[in-house]
């Protein structure tokens, strides 16, 4: 609901709010420029003095106005010719032209009415209302995504467009709410929908005399120039006319023959409010605030672009489900909990594969969960993403409530597959909650809960194999969320390890592919990559890519990965068999969540087996000699001590502070988590000093490391979960 409230006003009013924000940002410069350029009155100068000086310079003066910027303008007639100038209050003489700035006028008319008169004013008010709705709905979405208001400025994760969108929004939202609210008020005021003030009635009892100099008038001598808005002189030759004075306190009339105050009206509350709102919107009288608001408004076009990218990415990932069976007749019920839509893509692939395998399948959102209708169901499969801090995603609202309210769980056994991003602390938390609720209801289990990290096609294919086994059918799930642009990579060299421990492993080095000018310009593909990014290898005979972590960065001049041959592994088998000169088809996928980041804080790198790859890459790139502590688990130093020589050299060069190894085979099996425990005091101290922990390797190792760290950090009051929220604990797990 809130998402729709954000999406549709955003898309529909995109062009309008872009025009308004750009013109608004441009306009915000003028009050500041005027403030700087306008000659200011000296402190304590009175209106009497000012009027005296100006009248001396321009005897035919009719009106003196002071803008909130302090700029003073006088209007006069000199022998029938109208004149006007910006006045230097020190002399009363004209200092600059009083003609309106044509650029500012053009921008103002664009900004408030799109040059379309009242219709345009209403259109821009609609734009302001859309902006307000966007700001408020966006605020709620950010709070929900971050897991509460307290986490408003929490570290962001996920794809770049979404992160940029929120990054800009959470700073700019204050200004956008202020600007759009004040815009609506000003429109209402323009259309007389708000009560205004009035000018006091012309006094009747004038003296009928003329010639009292304004410089002598008591009220004018008591009014500082800083309070002046407007002083209007009586019409020459009309003894019934008066001096009219407007200040920021009110409006009054002065007798031109005696200087006496004839009438006075204070500003009404409404006028004061309206003037404050006018100041807040235009920055006139609050130039710095105006500049800040203008800067914030510049975020709107950027958020428009990133917002559209996020929306398109969601749409692309949401395919049509073909041949959906009815809930009552389907053997397999497929329930989908998706927020942005990408999980629907996986559901469609599964739906198609199951249908191909002769199953009748009903696919529906989890929110449509209706167990009483699943008459023919043999199994129920739940594909569930997680929103924010473990909340149900949009299409799964109400599922848990409905399950809790049911008398009993369905008879058809359940399989839960969670979709998430391991860099979030609440990884697949909603899927886990579903599995736990199912267990509490004694819902029979078809398969144990499994998870898919960052839409990994590899994880999905593997889970599909397991599902096929459980169902007794052959199931190949090939789901590629976005078709990548591939390159052909040529092997340059290889170093072999592991033959002794029956685990053939190789460090493979490929030449950099040629990069087109365009790719270089937009830094796409292999034009830019860092250690820790992923390359997807498309093995011959399967459309499902396999991902490997990069052990090199672009500036190293080569592409390097560490590959272990898996017993039935298609891609690893082909890679291990490569000889220099052979080629593979590959593409780059960035992995911004797994980077050491800038700064001088120590790094604790923990890896086992081929997980050393990206960690070695970080060490290799550590020319600035940031403190790096590497914990490396291997089977045996003689067989799989990858990068052994380089690590020693890097240590000499100061790129690596300390290397701690753990050997799992031999007389005293020792794992990397044991090595951590052995170094508990120092690890805890490093973390207290702000160290960043990066873990790369198998799932079991990652879980073991997390447990070990939890123990080690317990005395400090920190936990791996807290570090994750701060972005100081990141994993790359396979």
């Amino acid at each position, binding site marked *: 609901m809130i998402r729709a409230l954000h999406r549709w006003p955003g898309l529909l009013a995109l062009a309008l709010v872009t025009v308004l924000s750009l013109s608004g940002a441009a306009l915000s410069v003028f009050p500041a420029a005027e403030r700087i350029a306008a000659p200011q009155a000296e402190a304590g100068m009175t209106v009497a003095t000012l009027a005296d000086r100006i009248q001396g310079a321009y005897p035919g003066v*009719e*009106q003196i106005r002071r803008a909130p910027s302090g700029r003073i303008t006088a*209007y006069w*007639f000199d022998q*029938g010719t*109208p004149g*006007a100038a910006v006045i230097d209050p020190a002399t009363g003489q004209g200092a600059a032209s009083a*003609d*309106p700035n*044509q650029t500012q*006028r053009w921008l103002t*008319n664009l900004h408030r009415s799109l040059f379309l*008169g*009242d219709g345009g004013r209403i259109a821009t008010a609609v734009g302001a209302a859309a902006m307000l709705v966007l700001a408020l709905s966006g605020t709620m979405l950010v709070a929900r995504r971050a897991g509460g208001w307290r986490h408003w400025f929490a570290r962001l994760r996920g794809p770049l467009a979404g992160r940029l969108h929120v990054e800009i929004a959470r700073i700019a939202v204050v200004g956008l709410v202020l600007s759009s609210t004040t815009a609506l008020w000003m429109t209402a*005021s*323009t*259309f*007389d929908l708000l009560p*205004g003030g*009035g*000018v006091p*009635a*012309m006094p009747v009892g004038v003296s009928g005399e003329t010639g009292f100099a304004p410089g002598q008038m008591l009220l004018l001598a008591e009014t500082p120039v800083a309070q002046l808005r407007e002083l*209007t002189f009586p*019409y020459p030759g009309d003894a019934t006319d008066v001096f*009219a004075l407007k200040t920021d306190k009110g409006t009054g009339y002065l007798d031109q023959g005696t200087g006496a105050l004839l009438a006075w009206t204070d500003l009404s509350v409404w006028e004061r409010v309206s003037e404050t709102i006018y100041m807040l919107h235009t920055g006139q009288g609050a130039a710095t605030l105006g500049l800040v608001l203008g800067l914030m408004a510049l975020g709107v076009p950027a958020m428009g672009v990133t917002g559209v990218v996020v929306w398109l990415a969601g749409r692309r990932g949401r395919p049509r489900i073909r041949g959906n069976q009815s809930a009552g007749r389907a053997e397999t019920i497929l329930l989908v909990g998706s927020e942005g839509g990408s999980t629907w893509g996986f559901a469609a692939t599964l739906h198609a594969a199951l249908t191909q395998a002769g199953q009748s399948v009903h696919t529906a959102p989890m929110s449509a969960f209706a167990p009483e209708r699943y008459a023919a169901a043999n199994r129920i499969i739940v594909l569930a993403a997680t929103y924010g801090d473990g909340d149900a995603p949009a299409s799964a609202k109400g599922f848990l409530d409905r399950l809790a309210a049911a008398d009993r769980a369905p008879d058809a056994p359940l399989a839960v597959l969670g979709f998430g991003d391991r860099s979030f602390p609440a990884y697949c938390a909603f899927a886990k909650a579903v599995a736990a609720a199912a267990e509490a209801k004694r819902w029979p289990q078809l398969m144990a809960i499994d998870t898919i990290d960052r839409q990994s096609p590899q994880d999905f294919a593997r889970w599909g194999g397991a599902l096929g086994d459980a169902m007794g059918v052959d199931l190949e799930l090939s789901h590629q969320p976005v078709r990548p642009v591939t390159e052909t990579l040529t092997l340059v060299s290889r170093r072999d390890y592991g033959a002794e421990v029956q685990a053939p492993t190789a460090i493979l080095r490929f030449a950099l592919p040629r990069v087109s000018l365009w790719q270089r310009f937009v830094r796409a593909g292999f034009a830019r990559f860092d250690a820790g990014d992923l390359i997807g290898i498309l093995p011959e005979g399967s459309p499902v890519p396999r991902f490997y972590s990069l052990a090199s960065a672009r500036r190293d001049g080569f592409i390097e990965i560490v590959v272990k041959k898996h017993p039935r592994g298609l891609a690893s088998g082909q890679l291990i068999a490569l000889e220099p000169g052979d080629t593979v088809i590959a593409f780059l996928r960035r992995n911004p969540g797994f980077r050491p980041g800038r700064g001088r804080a120590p790094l604790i790198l923990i890896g086992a087996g081929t997980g050393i790859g990206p960690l070695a890459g970080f060490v290799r790139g550590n020319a600035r000699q940031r403190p790096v502590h590497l914990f490396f688990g291997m089977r045996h130093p003689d067989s799989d001590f990858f990068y052994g020589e380089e690590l020693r050299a890097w240590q000499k060069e100061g790129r690596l502070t300390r290397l701690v190894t753990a050997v799992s085979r031999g007389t005293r099996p020792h794992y990397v988590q044991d090595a951590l425990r052995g170094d508990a005091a120092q690890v805890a101290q490093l973390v207290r000093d702000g160290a960043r922990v990066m873990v790369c390797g198998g799932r079991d190792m990652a879980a073991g490391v997390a447990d070990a760290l939890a123990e080690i950090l317990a005395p400090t009051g920190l936990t791996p979960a807290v570090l994750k929220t701060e972005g100081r604990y990141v994993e790359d797990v396979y």
Partner: protein
Amino acid sequence: MKLKTLLATLALTTALTLPGLAMARPVTLTTTLNTYGGDGAYLALYVTDASGAYMGSLWMAGDKSRYYEHLSDWYRATGGDTAQVNGITGASVGAGRTLEITLDLADSLFDAGYTLHIDAAVEDMRDSPNEVAVPLTTAGAGTPVTGRRYIASFAYDM
């Protein structure tokens, strides 16, 4: 019929023929603005009698009443009463543009000491009350006059 009520209904009668207005004739008021380099001007056209007392309004160019106070003579005379220009209000007039209105004006308005005034105001520029003041005479019809600041020429034709 009292003159004031007559005037108030005059503008409404351009397309109508009301009984009792036999002694009226169509008068075209043509106001051309100079290129003063600002936004659309607000113009108030109204009539005063020989003593300078406000008699009634003929036209108001500009539809946002919150800006009427800048037409300061008209505003002072009417107290900003929008009822004075009810039904005889149009859009503001852009720089260099011409406003042409045709009204049925009573014969008794002419050659009787009445003066037609125009107050003008432009956003962020000077207010120009009494921009134009011309006596209503049959002899003066068709003779263009120049305003003080914004009006390049004004004439009434019968």
